[in-house]
């Protein structure tokens, strides 16, 4: 029986020891180190899914520019992770998008994404503080 990409993603995540679940909107998600990670399958036949870490930091009033600068710096420096803010300018998200050729490749990519998600909140906080200090000292 051929698995759909979503089923394969759920299998790989379960093999890694996590507990994938599907919510009422059909979104596959799982808990990783107290963070909810969502899995977005790619377009039909593309084998290009994405892992999304939504809402990992809140944006306080009047700090949108600072947060945008921090997101930009993190996206540039981490390379494999995109860090961005949502349409309402209230929350910060991170995503990891990739192509894979087979199940092993998919597993390695999921592990890489999780390694990055494990520390992205700390990296974000440090980057934001550093930028804040630099702006204050100008």
């Amino acid at each position, binding site marked *: 029986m051929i698995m759909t990409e979503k089923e394969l993603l759920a299998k790989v995540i379960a093999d890694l*020891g*996590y*507990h994938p679940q599907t919510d009422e909107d059909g979104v596959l998600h*799982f*808990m*990783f*180190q*107290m*963070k909810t990670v969502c899995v977005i399958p790619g377009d039909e036949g593309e084998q290009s899914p994405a892992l999304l870490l939504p809402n990992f930091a809140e944006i306080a009033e009047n700090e949108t520019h600072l947060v945008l600068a921090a997101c930009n710096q993190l996206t540039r420096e981490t390379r494999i992770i995109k860090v961005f803010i949502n349409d309402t300018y209230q929350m910060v998200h991170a995503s990891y998008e990739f192509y894979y050729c087979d199940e092993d490749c998919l597993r390695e990519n999921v592990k890489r994404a999780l390694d990055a998600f*494990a*520390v992205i*909140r*700390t990296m974000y*906080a440090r980057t934001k503080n550093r930028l804040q200090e630099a702006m204050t000292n100008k």
Partner: protein
Amino acid sequence: MTTKEHVLEALHALGFETKMLDGDTYGIHYEGDLLLCRFNEEDAGFFGLYYCMPIGDEEAQWPVLLANQINASRNYVKAYRSELALWLAYEREMFEKEEWQVTVSRMIEFVSTAVADVKQAFLECAAQVENVHVTDSNLQEA
């Protein structure tokens, strides 16, 4: 179920991979840091969460000041120096009716926040102070 079983189950549900380091000690990673989870066979309700930061200098006095500052300013998390390490700990008695995932996740957050503060203070102290000696005057400042 025992406290240990409840806590380990909660950790797995929260998405942690636990690694047994010895019979009563397990390691988890959070925000890139290794946190130690300890249980005690003789005290069935006990659960402790720890972070160990190596100091490397037996003579350095400032970790003692830093530990004192944490103990004076932080709720729940205590700090102490033991030989060549500064330890952060959150220990408590767990009860059968705990909301295990909520309690465990809050304990992790408290320790993790203290770890971030200590790392920052550590860097600042290390950069500014090479030889701090504990005196009455700097104890009062701390």
